[in-house]
C-alpha cells in the first residue's frame, strides 16, 4: 500500500532520536488516525474487542451531525434567508470558521500537552471541539471561541491530567467561561442572529419573562427558534440520542433520568403556579435537550456507577428547571446545572461505592 510505505518511510524522522523526534506524539496521532496500529497483545487477553476510543468518539460526532446540520440551516432561516439550501449554505459559511477555530485551538493545545507528556493524543477533543461552537450563539466573535476553547482545554482538562481525568465537561466549561467573561457578546437580543440588525429574545427568555413564547411547541420541537447553534432542534437532538443509545455509547440511565427530573420539576412548578406553561416546554427550549443528550452523558464527568447515574441525572434535570424558574436573572439553567452536578458526581459515586464496601464488610460479620 502506497500510503503505508510513505508513512513507514517518514516514521524514523519523527521517532525518538530522529530529526523531528520532538513531534513524536503528533506524528503518532496522525499515524493512528490513518492506520489502526499493528500493536499486538502482549499480556492479558490475546484477543480484543475491535472497539476503541476513536470509534466511541466518532460515534458521538456522528450523533451530533443532525443537530449541527439543522443548526446550520436554522442560522440562515433565522437570518431571513429564503429556501432550504441557501439558508443552509449561509449558515454553513457562518458556522465553519467557528468549528475550525475551535478545533485548531483545542487540538494545538492537546498536541502540545501530549508532546510534553510523551503521551498518545487522546481523541476526546474530537467531540469537545465540535460541541463548543454548537453551544455558542452564532454571532460570537471568533476570538472568544478561541479563548474559551483554550480555557476549557487547559484549565478544564489538561491541568487535571488530560482526557479521562477532568472534573468538568470541557465544552460546557468553554461556554460558561465565555458567558461570564464576555457577557455582552454572549447574551442580549442580537447575538442569536447572524444577520445585522435582527434582534429578538429566545424562546427561553420569553418564557422566563412573559410566561409564553411567540413560537408554537411544534416549532420549538423542530427547532425553528433562535438559540445556540446546536441546541434549538429537539428533533435533531433526539435523532442523535437514538444513535448514542443504540450504540450504547451514552448511558440511557442518565439521559432518561435528566428528562424525568426536568419534567417532574417543571410539572411541580406548573402545579404550584410558579410557571404558566406546560412542563414539557422546558424540554423543548434552551439547551435542555442538548445538555441532557450530549453533555450530561459525558462518561468522564458524570457519575460512574449505575445507581449514581440515576441520582445524577435526576438532579441535573431538576436543578436545570429550578434555576430557570427561580432565578429570573439567568434563564438558562442547564449549563450551570450540569457543571454543578459534574462537581457533585464523585460524591454521589462515593456513597454508592461505600454501600458496596459495606456489603462486603457485612460478610466478615456473618462468619464471626
Amino acid at each position, binding site marked *: *500500500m502506497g*500510503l*503505508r510505505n510513505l508513512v513507514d518511510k517518514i516514521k524514523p524522522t519523527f521517532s525518538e532520536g530522529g530529526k523531528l523526534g520532538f513531534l513524536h506524539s503528533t506524528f503518532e496521532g496522525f499515524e*493512528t*488516525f*490513518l*492506520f*489502526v*496500529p*499493528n*500493536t*499486538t*497483545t*502482549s*499480556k*492479558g*487477553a*490475546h*484477543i*480484543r*474487542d*475491535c*472497539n*476503541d*476510543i*476513536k*470509534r*466511541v468518539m*466518532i*460515534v458521538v460526532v456522528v450523533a451530533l451531525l443532525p443537530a449541527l446540520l439543522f443548526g446550520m440551516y436554522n442560522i440562515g432561516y433565522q437570518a431571513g434567508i429564503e429556501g432550504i439550501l441557501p439558508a443552509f449554505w449561509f449558515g454553513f459559511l457562518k458556522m465553519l470558521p467557528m468549528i475550525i477555530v475551535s478545533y485548531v485551538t483545542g487540538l494545538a493545545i492537546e498536541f502540545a500537552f501530549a508532546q510534553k507528556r510523551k503521551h*498518545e493524543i*487522546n*481523541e*476526546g477533543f474530537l467531540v469537545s471541539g465540535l460541541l463548543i461552537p454548537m453551544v455558542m450563539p452564532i454571532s460570537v466573535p471568533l476570538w472568544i471561541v478561541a479563548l474559551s476553547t483554550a480555557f476549557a482545554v487547559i484549565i478544564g482538562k489538561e491541568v487535571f491530567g*488530560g*482526557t*479521562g*481525568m477532568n472534573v468538568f465537561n470541557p465544552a460546557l466549561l468553554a461556554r460558561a467561561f465565555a458567558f461570564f467573561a464576555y457577557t455582552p457578546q454572549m447574551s442580549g437580543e442580537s447575538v442569536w442572529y447572524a444577520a445585522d440588525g435582527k434582534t429578538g429574545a429566545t424562546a427561553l427568555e420569553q418564557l422566563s419573562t412573559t410566561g409564553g413564547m411567540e413560537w408554537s411547541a411544534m416549532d420549538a420541537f423542530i427547532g425553528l427558534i433562535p438559540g445556540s447553534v446546536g441546541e434549538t432542534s429537539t428533533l435533531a437532538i433526539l435523532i442523535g440520542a437514538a444513535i448514542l443509545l*443504540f*450504540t*450504547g*455509547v451514552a*448511558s440511557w*440511565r442518565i439521559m432518561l433520568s435528566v428528562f424525568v427530573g426536568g419534567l417532574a420539576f417543571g410539572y411541580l412548578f406548573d402545579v404550584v403556579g410558579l410557571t404558566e406553561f406546560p412542563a414539557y416546554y422546558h424540554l423543548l427550549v434552551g439547551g435542555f435537550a442538548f445538555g441532557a443528550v450530549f453533555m450530561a452523558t459525558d*462518561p468522564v464527568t*458524570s457519575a*460512574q*456507577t*449505575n445507581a449514581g*447515574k440515576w441520582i445524577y441525572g435526576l438532579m441535573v434535570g431538576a436543578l436545570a428547571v429550578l434555576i430557570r424558574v427561580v432565578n429570573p436573572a439567568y434563564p438558562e439553567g442547564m449549563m450551570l446545572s450540569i457543571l454543578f452536578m459534574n462537581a457533585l458526581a464523585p460524591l454521589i459515586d462515593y456513597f454508592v*461505592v461505600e454501600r*458496596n*464496601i459495606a*456489603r*462486603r*464488610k457485612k*460478610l*466478615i460479620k*456473618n*462468619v464471626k
Partner: protein
Amino acid sequence: MSKNIKLCKGLDIKLAGKAEAVVENAPMAKSYAVSPLDYENVTPKLLVKVGDKVEVGTALFFDKKDPRILFTSPVSGVVSAINRGEKRKLLNVAIEPDQTQVVKELKVVDAKADRSAIVEMLLESGLWTRIVERPYGVIANPDAEPKAIFVSAFDSAPLAPDYNFVLQNDKAAVEAGLAVLARLTNGKVHLSARKGDEGYMSEVKGVEYHTFSGKHPVGNVGVQIHHIDRIAKGDVVWTVNIQDVALIGRFVTTGKLDMTKVIAVAGSEAQKPCYKRIIAGAAVESIVGKVDAKVRIISGDVLTGVKTAHDGYISAGANMLSLIPEGDVYELLGWAMPRFHRFSVSRAYFSWLCPKKEYKLDTNLNGGERPFVVTGLYENYLPMDVYVAYLLKAILVKDLDKMENLGIYEVLPEDLALCEFVDPSKIEMQQIVRDGINLMIKES
C-alpha cells in the same frame, strides 16, 4: 440439590476452530518441561542437575518459602536442560523422556486416611501444586484450613474443552479425587456443573452440587464462589481444576502417578481442531505439528492463556492450546470502517447483526491504550458485586485498604479477562490485578 444459579452478565465470544470431539494420542514429545513460572509467587530451589536420571514423580525443585511443596517430573528420563533467563531466573527444567516410562514408588493412601497423611501424599507426588488458594490464586498453604473447596466441572471460555467429553471415562477417578479433597476441609466441597450439560457430575456423592447457567465467565470458579459462598476478609478457600481432580483420583486409585491428560487443540489456525491425549508439560511441537510463523500459540484459552511458541511447552495448568493468527498488520482507517470481519460487543460495529457468526479474531490490540473513559461497561462482563474501575484504580494507586474494601480477595486476573477484552481503552486489567495481588502478598 440446590437450585440453579443463573447469571445474566457475561459474554460468549464465538470463535472459529472449535475442537472436534475426537481424541488423538499425541506422540511422545522429544522434551517435557516443568516451570515455576506456571505458578504464582514461587521461588524455586533446584533439586536436580543436567544429566540426572528422573522418574515420573521425582522432585525437580521446591518452593523456598515452603520446602514441602515439590514440583515433580511428569515423565521419566534425563534432565536435558535447566533453562534460565535474566538474573539467572529459573525458566524451566527440561527432561528428555525414556522410551519406557518408569514411575517412582510413592506412598499412596486412600481417602479414609488421616488428613495429614493425605496432605503428605499430595505434597510428595507434586499434585499438591494443583491446589489453588484464594485469595490470591497461589499454591495452597498445607497448614491452612480452607473454609471450603470449590471445583468447577466446566469451562466457559472461548473454545474451551468440554470436560464432560474429556473425562467421560474417568468418573471413578473424579469421584475418588473429590473424596480426597473432602478430607482436606472441614467445610464443604462444592462442585458446579453447567445446567443442561451436567454429564455424570450430578451423580457424584459427598459434594455440595450446584448448577449454573449463563455466559462466560460463568465457568470461572471465582465467579461461582461469589454466588455460592463469597470470600470475606480472612477467609481461605481452595479450588482445583476438574481435570486435576481426576489426576489426583487416578493417583489414589491406581497407586501410580500418571500425568496423562486430554487437552483441546483449537482455534482458527489449528490444522485440525480436536482433542489430544498428552502428558503434562509436553513440548508444543509434539502436540500441534507444523505451525505457520504468523500464528500465536497460547497455552490456555485466548482470554487468560500464556503466549508460548512452537519450541515452547504447554503450561502445567493448561487444558488447551489455542492457535490464532497474529494481528501485527496495519488497518487503513480501521476505526472508521464497518469492519464486518471483526467482533465487538458495541453496536458501534455490526457484529450484533450476525450473532451466530464464528469469528477468526487475531491478536491485534485494535487501538491504543487510553485512560479510563467509558463507564458502566465493565460491570456487565463481571457477574460479581465488584466495581471494576474503582478496584483497578485502587490498585493503580497502591491503596491496600481500598483494594481490600473493593474486593481484591474475590478476584483473580482471569475473572477480569472479559472486561479487558471489551475495554475500548485497552487497559491491561489482568496485569493490574496481578500486580495488585502481588502487592497484597508482599505487604501481608
